[in-house]
């Protein structure tokens, strides 16, 4: 395995580590932006831990974004590595050239261009040999087929034992038990290949951290129901990042509590940086290529996004930490019924539409925005039913195509233009009419 010094010679890592403190300093300018500051701290802490793990010869476990990190943290000194992470972080932190390079590498090596850019980010980074090689890999079939594609490529490129997890089509207890049984099967697999023992007391501690994170997220989302929204729209999608990389770790608790503290304080103080004129449920995918676009929506259009599909975290109970079995069942329940996207995308259109309707009502939205990532075939495949449901409910809906990680598909100016026209010509006049 390469040392951290060798890895840091890679521009993709060096640029990321150089960008983090710069951004930290930038956001320090707003001392109450606890959420974004915490995210940057957690990412920094994670990368520091990962580099230390490289130097100390600790094992890495690769997995895809439908999976959560608790079981890996419960192994002790094992480093979880979601294969999309480096590409997504570059996207999130504005290094679009780097992430587009990953995407192009994936296509050049045989990933079809119509597959999801999130997965191309993963495949490109692996092909570029940017990740420490794994002791083993875990693949889950949620939220979509493109993830299945990514897991199979991961299994091939990772050159390490691979454990697939099947999440069925349904949402019932039988499904939860089926997934829990696989997690039970996963534990000896992880132990064997990482040479670490999963201690159930440590798992209990990890699950407690996970529960604290979940409770903070729920409360945070509750506070975001307030009208007008006192916290930036762009923070809402962080639930997904948090669940993939930080849940079960103290970083996860810190980030969730920071998001909560920020919205609470800003709401209590009555802070408003813009006049909120309309609220939208952003359904499907965030504009990761330019998160500042949400600031433009707020300032130029008065449009806020209190919740989106990546941010919504369903209230399906906490992990029961009494026994190993209850813990595994709780972790399975999270993967099946709570994890953003996995909950909405892998089954029929029922949950997808019901969740939207729930969000629209509970977060007092005026409209829906279907930001259709071009590779989300499962969502596009149900667009007719979704439009029909919105029409019946009298909810104005904007539908457009873009790529959440690749601005070459639809320029962000075009995304802004579409949203602007929709808000100004449909949503606001309609709202004015009462």
């Amino acid at each position: 395995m390469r040392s951290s010094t060798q890895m840091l010679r890679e521009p993709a890592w060096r640029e990321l580590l150089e960008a983090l403190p710069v951004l930290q300093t930038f956001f320090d300018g707003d001392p109450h932006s606890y959420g974004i500051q915490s995210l940057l701290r957690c990412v920094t802490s994670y990368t520091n831990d990962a580099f230390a793990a490289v130097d100390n010869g600790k094992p890495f476990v690769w997995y895809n974004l439908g999976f959560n990190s608790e079981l890996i943290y419960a192994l002790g000194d094992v480093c979880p590595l979601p294969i999309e992470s480096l590409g997504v972080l570059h996207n999130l932190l504005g290094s679009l050239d780097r992430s587009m390079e990953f995407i192009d590498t994936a296509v050049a090596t045989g990933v079809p261009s119509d597959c999801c850019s999130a997965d191309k980010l993963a495949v490109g980074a692996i092909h570029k040999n940017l990740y420490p090689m794994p002791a083993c890999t875990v693949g889950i079939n949620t939220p979509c087929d493109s993830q299945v594609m990514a897991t199979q490529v991961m299994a091939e490129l990772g050159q390490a034992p691979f454990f697939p997890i099947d999440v069925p089509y349904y949402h019932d207890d039988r499904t939860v038990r089926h997934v829990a049984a696989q997690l039970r099967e996963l534990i000896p697999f992880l132990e064997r290949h990482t040479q670490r023992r999963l201690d159930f007391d440590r798992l209990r501690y990890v699950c407690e951290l996970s529960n604290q994170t979940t409770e903070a997220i729920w409360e945070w989302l509750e506070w975001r129901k307030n009208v007008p929204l006192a916290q930036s729209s762009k923070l809402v999608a962080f639930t997904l990042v948090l669940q993939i990389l930080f849940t079960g770790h103290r970083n996860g608790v810190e980030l969730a509590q920071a998001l909560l503290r920020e919205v609470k304080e800003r709401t209590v103080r009555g802070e408003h940086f813009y006049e909120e004129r309309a609220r939208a449920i952003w359904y499907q995918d965030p504009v990761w290529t330019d998160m500042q676009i949400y600031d433009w929506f707020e300032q130029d259009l008065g449009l806020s996004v209190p919740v989106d599909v990546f941010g919504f975290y369903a209230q399906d109970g906490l992990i029961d930490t009494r026994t190993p079995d209850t813990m595994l069942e709780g972790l399975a329940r999270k993967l099946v019924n709570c994890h953003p996207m996995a909950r909405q995308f892998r089954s029929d259109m029922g949950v997808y539409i019901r969740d939207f309707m729930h969000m629209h009502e509970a977060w007092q939205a005026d409209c829906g925005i279907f930001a259709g990532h071009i590779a989300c075939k499962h969502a596009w495949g149900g667009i007719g039913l979704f439009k029909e449901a919105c029409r019946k409910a009298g909810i104005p809906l904007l539908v457009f195509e873009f790529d959440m990680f690749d601005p070459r598909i639809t320029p962000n100016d075009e995304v802004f233009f579409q949203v602007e026209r929709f808000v100004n010509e449909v949503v606001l006049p309609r709202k004015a009419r009462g």
Partner: protein
Amino acid sequence: MPDATLQSILALIQEPVPQPVRDWKSNGQPVVGYFCQYVPQELILASGALPLRLRGVGSDDPSLGDALMSGRVCTFVRHVMSLVLDGRYDVLDAAVCANTCDHVRRAADVFTHKTDIPCEFVSVPRSPRESLFAYYLEELRNLHASLCTRFGTAPTDDALRDAIRTIESNRQRLRALPPLRQHQAPKLTGAESLALHIASQVLPPKDFQSLADELLEALERRPGFEDLRARFVLIGAELDDPGYVRALESQGALVVGDQLCFGARSVLPPIDPDAQDPLEAIARTYFFRHSCARMMGDFPARYESIVKLVDDCRADGVIFQRLMFCDPWGADHHNILLRCKNVGGFPFLSLTREYGIVPTGQLRTRVQAFVERIEIARAQATPIQEGGES
């Protein structure tokens, strides 16, 4: 003459609902349309219904499907659902969908919300390993019970055993094809073979068996195809268009083996009709079959089977075809290319296609170039590789 029988078969499979299926229906017997090879024909047959594999053949325009599913769903599913919405599958008493892929899942939504055709669903685990088998078995037990209730039949083991025997009779005939194709001078083309495989999935068993017997007998007298420029193995996603294969074979080469879902991959190993639990025997054979690209963690086995098939067929190269927007086969595409690059593999041509369209000119040019490269390499006795998305 094989040609006359083949013409009859081709004519029958030109329609989404062949005439013998309409005849079956007019006798008051139910018909069940199904997507995906993980839905056992035997279960449908044992419930008293005829299994009819859903296809988009005969659809000129997917716009009804487009309106509900957008243009981002694969054209196979959009054409099928356009036919369904247009009433062209008017014989169906029920449909069975599986979570084969995101596209078929959405087809189930359309069935449920936009048609009067009841839709059953099977959640097929994404990894063919023993610990997940029980879940699949339970899904099939539920499906069998539900179909029997729907059609007022008793879910008996005897009915299942009879269905196993009937479908096995189909498969026995299909198992006669690989030796004829793999022969030095193949007796039938890849297009003809595909047509017969399709017929086995869309005709009532008796009609199929009679045509297959006629064809197999005629093929014995047919001289083989000599002086081939190249021999190919054809793999990849849903392909039920013999015309497409015919275009591939138009440059003096022949498809001598395939692993197509509608083709040779539809032929399972024999299922023991006398097994103590016939439904479990069915489930086991289907679940641990040669896997579809949707199955995670099974690529190494799939790759080995391609290598073996290339060897068995003495093929000069592999043609991979994939429907636009198909993610599972996208992974196999990447992984096959990688192995070809790393371990030598085989000459490989990759084609991306849309359902129902045979871009004859482009296809011939690509295949001709591929054949020429094979011929040049053969002359120079050096291995070649081809990759990339078309």
